[in-house]
């Protein structure tokens, strides 16, 4: 067997410590790894250029095929037939699986994919495997992503005639910090150094800022502030951003995102066409996988056609004796997916609300991503935004990667004589970060949509008399209770001076620096003064690995509520 095509770096490479010490002589490239498609772009000295593979494609399918143990990805390998991708040997949709545990509904939904996704429903990483020579060969989303990235890297190195190390990657808004570490890990395995992980709509916002600045230059005007709403929906995720742009600076006012995308539309349609699919394909023999593949391709094809015509005839022989022959119209498709579309609408509404922006004040509405062709998506975005037309001037499938390439050039310290790189994105936190307190509640310390870098703090106190220790559980998310959020880590603070409950003051401070590293500080204040009683704790997060759901449960079993905290109430 050949050596794996990637180098496995130690975990320390992903901690970000190293970020500051590396050199930035080269221009970082921009990579948009989509659930379904992927692209790579670079600033070529005067503009952003998308790189093409040997088959002259700018958009490449995101998948890796395992054949005889030698993996090859969608960048280089030529598929004889679409169906080969569905033979069980190809792993795709990595972006929907990475950094998720087997209790996650998104992982459960992925079980209809034509490879092995096995869950034990206990909060550990799912078992993922590709069918090679009739054997299920195990792998992981990180490994698949790394193999894919190695191919991308090699392709870019050949074309740019230089080694590639620094990259800017786009990521979904809803990714947790734990998921970000998994992406960084995959990059490290591929020998790439992550300069920045950019939420997709903020990359689009940067491209928009550049376009606005060029327009302002052309008109010789000063370019007043413009507010834009960006809606980005791909196969795996839906993201919304509201940005205020002036003079090449894009300030992210608010972000909203969720793991809904074209994949959900596809699965709902498949379920609509073959309601008992789950029980039919339970076995996952070669025949079942083939049937699942056939159904997937036929449904995907039908959805594409429904973007341009009102109804479509679906004829597919699943091979196992069942045949589907059905006419589906657009109304049916929209009805089957009503919940997905409702979710999209609510994300826009929420984002506008968080940005404290009235829809009338929005200058441009930008729709990008693989789902932007779907008439219903177009209509709902126009509807919610009360518009007749969308922003033109961006290729919806290339906007994110172009923005990432721009960020790569800006962050590499490049300047452009024509001011085309006179750009900046001021990011905001996509998810709130806080701790467990007041029972099982999540108490945010840095709320979502806080301008980064950010530093916030809150005071807490004890729940028991003479409590001398407390556990700090750090969570990220939007849920009211901690179970709805992602656990990032935990640590214990000791040395609280014995006192009646409610008297000691415990300060918890969170700091997100310019490179998006999160540090959590906690300290006990001396009674009557405002100095730390004992050395405070400083913890870089996230610290937990897979199976993190267990840690919180185990700690609760061991300690009950004896180490709990409550927030200090403000007097009125």
């Amino acid at each position, binding site marked *: 067997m050949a050596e794996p095509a990637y180098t496995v770096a130690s975990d320390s490479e992903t901690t970000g410590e190293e970020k500051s010490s590396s050199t930035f002589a080269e221009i970082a490239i921009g990579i948009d790894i989509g659930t379904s498609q992927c692209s790579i772009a670079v600033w070529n000295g005067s503009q952003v250029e998308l790189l093409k593979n040997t088959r002259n494609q700018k958009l490449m399918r995101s998948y890796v095929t395992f054949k005889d143990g030698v993996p090859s990805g969608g960048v280089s390998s030529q598929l004889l037939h679409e169906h080969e991708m569905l033979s069980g040997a190809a792993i795709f949709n990595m972006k929907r699986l990475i950094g998720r545990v087997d209790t996650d509904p998104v992982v459960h939904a992925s079980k209809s994919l034509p490879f092995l996704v096995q869950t034990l429903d206990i909060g550990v990483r799912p078992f993922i495997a590709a069918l090679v020579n009739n054997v299920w060969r195990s792998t992981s989303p990180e490994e698949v992503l790394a193999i894919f990235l190695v191919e991308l890297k090699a392709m870019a190195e050949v074309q740019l005639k230089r080694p590639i190390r620094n990259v800017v990657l786009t990521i979904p808004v809803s990714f947790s910090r734990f998921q970000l570490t998994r992406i960084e890990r995959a990059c490290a395995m591929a020998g790439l150094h992550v300069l920045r992980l950019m939420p997709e709509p903020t990359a689009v916002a940067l491209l928009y800022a550049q376009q606005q600045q060029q327009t302002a230059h052309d008109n010789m005007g000063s370019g007043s502030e413009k507010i834009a709403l960006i809606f980005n929906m791909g196969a795996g995720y839906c993201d919304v951003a509201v940005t205020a742009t002036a003079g090449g*600076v894009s300030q992210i006012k608010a972000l909203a995102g969720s793991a809904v995308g074209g994949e959900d539309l596809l699965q709902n349609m498949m379920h609509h066409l073959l309601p008992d699919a789950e029980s039919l394909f339970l076995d996952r023999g070669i025949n079942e996988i083939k049937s699942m593949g056939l159904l997937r391709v036929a449904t995907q094809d039908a959805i594409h056609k429904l973007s341009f015509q009102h109804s479509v005839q679906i004829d597919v022989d699943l091979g196992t004796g069942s045949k589907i022959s059905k006419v589906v119209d657009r109304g049916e498709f929209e009805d089957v997916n009503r919940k997905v579309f409702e979710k999209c609408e609510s994300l826009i509404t929420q984002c506008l609300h968080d940005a404290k922006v009235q829809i009338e004040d929005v200058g441009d509405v930008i729709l990008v991503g693989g789902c932007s062709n779907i008439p219903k998506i177009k209509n709902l975005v126009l509807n919610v935004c009360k518009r007749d037309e969308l922003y033109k001037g961006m290729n919806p499938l290339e906007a994110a990667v172009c923005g990432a390439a721009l960020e790569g050039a800006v962050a590499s310290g490049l300047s452009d004589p024509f001011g085309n790189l006179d750009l*900046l994105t001021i990011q905001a936190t996509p998810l709130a970060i806080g701790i467990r307190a007041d029972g099982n509640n999540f108490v945010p310390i840095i709320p979502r949509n806080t301008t980064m870098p950010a530093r916030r703090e809150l005071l807490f106190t004890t729940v028991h008399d003479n409590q001398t220790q407390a556990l700090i559980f750090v969570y990220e998310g939007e849920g009211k209770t901690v179970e709805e959020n992602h656990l990032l880590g935990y640590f214990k603070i000791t040395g609280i001076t014995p006192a009646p409950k409610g008297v000691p003051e415990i300060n918890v401070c969170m700091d997100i620096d310019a490179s998006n590293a999160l540090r959590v500080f906690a300290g006990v204040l001396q009674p009557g003064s405002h100095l730390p009683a004992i050395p405070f704790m400083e913890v870089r997060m996230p610290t937990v690995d897979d199976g993190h759901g267990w840690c919180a449960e185990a700690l609760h079993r061991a300690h009950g509520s004896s180490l709990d905290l409550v927030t200090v109430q403000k007097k*009125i």
Partner: protein
Amino acid sequence: MSKQKLWIPLSSIVRRALRLTQRVPISSAARTQPILASFSPSNSENCGLFPSRGFDFLGSSKLSGRCSLSTQSAEKVVDAKCWNCNAEAEAAPFLVCRSCRCIQPVDQSVDYFRIFGLEKKYDIEDDNLERKYKDWQKKLHPDLVHSKSEREREYAAEQSARVIDAFRTLNKPLSRAIYILKLEGVDVDEEETISEPDLLAEIMEIREAVEEAADSQALKQLQSQMQEKLEHWSNLFAIAFRNRNFGDARKSIRRMTYYERVNEEIVKKL
């Protein structure tokens, strides 16, 4: 009284502690250094208990000496020189060197108004604040100095954070009012218990109205009421401040703080 999740930021306590330290004469500053070092006092968001970005916790004594928020004269800065190219500072505020574009260390004596080239008064008539803020970020943001020295990256992190705070503080009437009073050496205790009977009565009334509000329509109506009251007291503050009647100014701030809190409650319920 209903339970509310409203918290005291340590920074407000820090500010109180600072009032004491600021009375210490300069000559004895050396003695107070260890305490001062652990609180970077200027900044209400960048609180002091924990080390500020880029500074070593114990080594941050370089902050002291010019950490006083008092109204130092602006002209002093002109003596400053760029740490990198040694060029004379051309214009105040000296955040970036004009000749080598190098980011300068934070000078706490430059107040938030001067960062934005504004006159130090409460009723700022500047629609361009956000624009100026962005212009600064384009020069100071840490994202833009990735390839520079560690020293300059530290300065970028601090300066950019300070400009964010400055913008946030001046952009909202209440925080602007509290800040401008602080520049006059008047501290506002946000945790003060309310003792004015008429305000107490009003609080109870509004509280009830918010709790009993049946729908978003009713809440929105309350919200616009609060907005009106905020504007009213903001105007009173402006007058009091102009007349240097700090007692009345503090009274206005108390009211504004309260209406702002109600507003937050309403937004939560909406």
